[in-house]
């Protein structure tokens, strides 16, 4: 087991180096750059732009820049934002809670709804409900999230005026209810896709379990159906879902990014888009690295948890 973990950590480290290289190369080889936003400021000339770039260390050879940035990662220095000069880690930390709130709420909601829909669909296989759920999930996976968000804003904010069109809270009113009304639309939009994914996997996992011997035995013993379902079927079907949860992190993160941009949610997705607009390389790199670490950790944890939860799975 420790050997396995070490192996996995080693692999993850290699992946992280590759991620940082890919990100760095893409950013720095592209034309334009952070100076362009100042190009039309009063009194600006090429010489002044060159001086500022020089002072920011952008005129050094790329390899030098990369190695300096990379070695500093290890002492927890992820660089400073080009915009407000704050350390990248605290910039990310500042935007993380909003994203976690959105992702967390949406994930909890979609796990609950998705499990219910999936199990019910499996139990009543090929019923009208099952067919509708299957087709519905396929369509939900096909709707562009951002467009769905736009339509929701048009309908519920502009047209009906029921819900706010964006933001996380109203200034001066940060009550729970206020947060809740701001959460409804983005969570609904983000959860739509996740419910679809979750319910489909839950359905097939349940189907795998439902025909197994121990379920038949339990039913033969005369246990109530509901009890069999909750104690035997769902518990066992949820097991593979742990891995899925780990694997789904990139999708959920990507979905959150898209949702945040439509609903002007002040989280990581918004930060990422803003940083792109201002060519804030350190923050862009920081977010890429951060999400990669999150994904790798998620995968690793999922693997380990499955090992813990199911002794039959031998790791290594």
């Amino acid at each position: 087991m420790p050997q396995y973990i070490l192996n996995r950590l080693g692999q993850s480290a290699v992946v992280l180096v590759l991620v940082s290289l890919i990100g760095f190369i893409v950013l720095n080889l592209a034309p334009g750059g952070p100076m362009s936003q100042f190009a039309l400021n009063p009194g600006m000339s090429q010489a002044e732009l060159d001086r500022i770039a020089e002072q920011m260390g952008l005129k050094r050879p790329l390899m030098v820049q990369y190695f300096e940035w990379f070695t500093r990662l290890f002492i927890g220095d992820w660089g400073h934002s080009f915009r407000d000069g704050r350390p990248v880690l605290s910039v990310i930390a500042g935007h993380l809670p909003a994203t976690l709130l959105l992702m967390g709420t949406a994930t909890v909601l979609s796990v609950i709804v998705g499990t219910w829909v999936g199990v019910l669909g499996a139990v009543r296989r090929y019923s009208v409900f099952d067919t509708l759920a299957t087709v519905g999930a396929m369509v939900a996976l096909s709707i562009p999230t951002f467009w769905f968000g736009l339509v929701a804003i048009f309908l519920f904010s502009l047209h009906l005026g029921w819900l706010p069109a964006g933001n996380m809270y109203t200034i001066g009113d940060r009550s729970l209810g206020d947060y809740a009304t701001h959460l409804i639309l983005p969570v609904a939009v983000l959860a739509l896709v996740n419910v679809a994914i979750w319910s489909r996997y839950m359905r097939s996992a349940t189907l795998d379990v439902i025909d197994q011997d121990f379920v038949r035995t339990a039913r033969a013993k005369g246990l109530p159906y509901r009890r069999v379902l909750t104690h035997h079927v769902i518990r066992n079907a949820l097991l593979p879902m742990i891995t899925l949860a780990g694997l789904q992190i990139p999708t959920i993160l990507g979905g959150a990014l898209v949702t945040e941009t439509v609903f002007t949610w002040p989280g990581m997705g918004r930060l990422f888009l803003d940083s792109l607009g201002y060519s804030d390389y350190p923050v862009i790199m920081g977010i890429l690295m951060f999400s990669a670490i999150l994904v790798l950790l998620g995968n690793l944890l999922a693997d380990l948890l499955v090992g813990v939860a199911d002794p039959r799975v031998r790791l290594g």
Partner: protein
Amino acid sequence: MSTVATYPSFSGRLAWFSNPTLARFMRHKLAVLGVVMITLLVLACVFGPYLLHYTDLSIDIRNRFSPPLTGNHYLGTDALGRDTAARLLNAGRISLTVGFFAMLISTLIGTLIGVVAGYYRGWIGAALMRFVDAFLSFPSVFLVLVLAAFIKPSPTMITLIIAVTSWMEISRIVEAEIRSLRERDFTLAARMVGASHRWIMFRELVPNAIGPIIVAATLTIANAILLEAYISFLGYGIQPPLPSWGNMLNAAQQYLGNAPWLAIIPGLAITLAVTSFNFIGDGLRDALDGRSDLK
């Protein structure tokens, strides 16, 4: 998104094309519906523009923001008074083409890397698969945006960007497939008669893994269409005056309150196309899966 599933392997070439498979596919109602919808959509995009009263570029600024069913503007007009129907169909040509070629390129990249990694294993395989992991470990939206934000946008560039960020799933599937196929008898036989590695990889192994590749490719088109729409929606993708479903949405965003149809129509088109490909992919998976039997 929904490609995590186990793929069976097939012995014998062209097995996937044999009648039972086709029959299974034809029994999959949603898949057939998908084929019908996508065929209609493609036909409409190819021939539709010739049947309309307006071209997608004819500007008529005095009649801007006409709602649908105004005169011969079946779907209304946009902010420059251009016919929405004509733009929608021409945008469809671009969006579907981008999706199709992005799929083609990413399938090629994915298959190539998957085959090499699965066949050679060892350090080559390990290195390649870590590379795959690296690409997989940030949401592709992040990577696509980083690329698109700093590169001069053109349909070719956008196609390449999407392709470069969506080949990983395919190579994972192919790698797993090849890894098991290479231990099979026919591979051993081929090796024994002295076939070259290249021959074995591309003449023996790939044709036998074609089923899962096709399924994954179908789903890749669906995702590529969504990705194109999203980056164009953010203004980093296909640039006007060339229409794409995504940049039609981008242009419509500002007028959401006054001219909602400009936002609703292209979104429906995207949903329709993507749903169709997802239906087809699902049907193909079931049809190619020998074990599944639709009752």
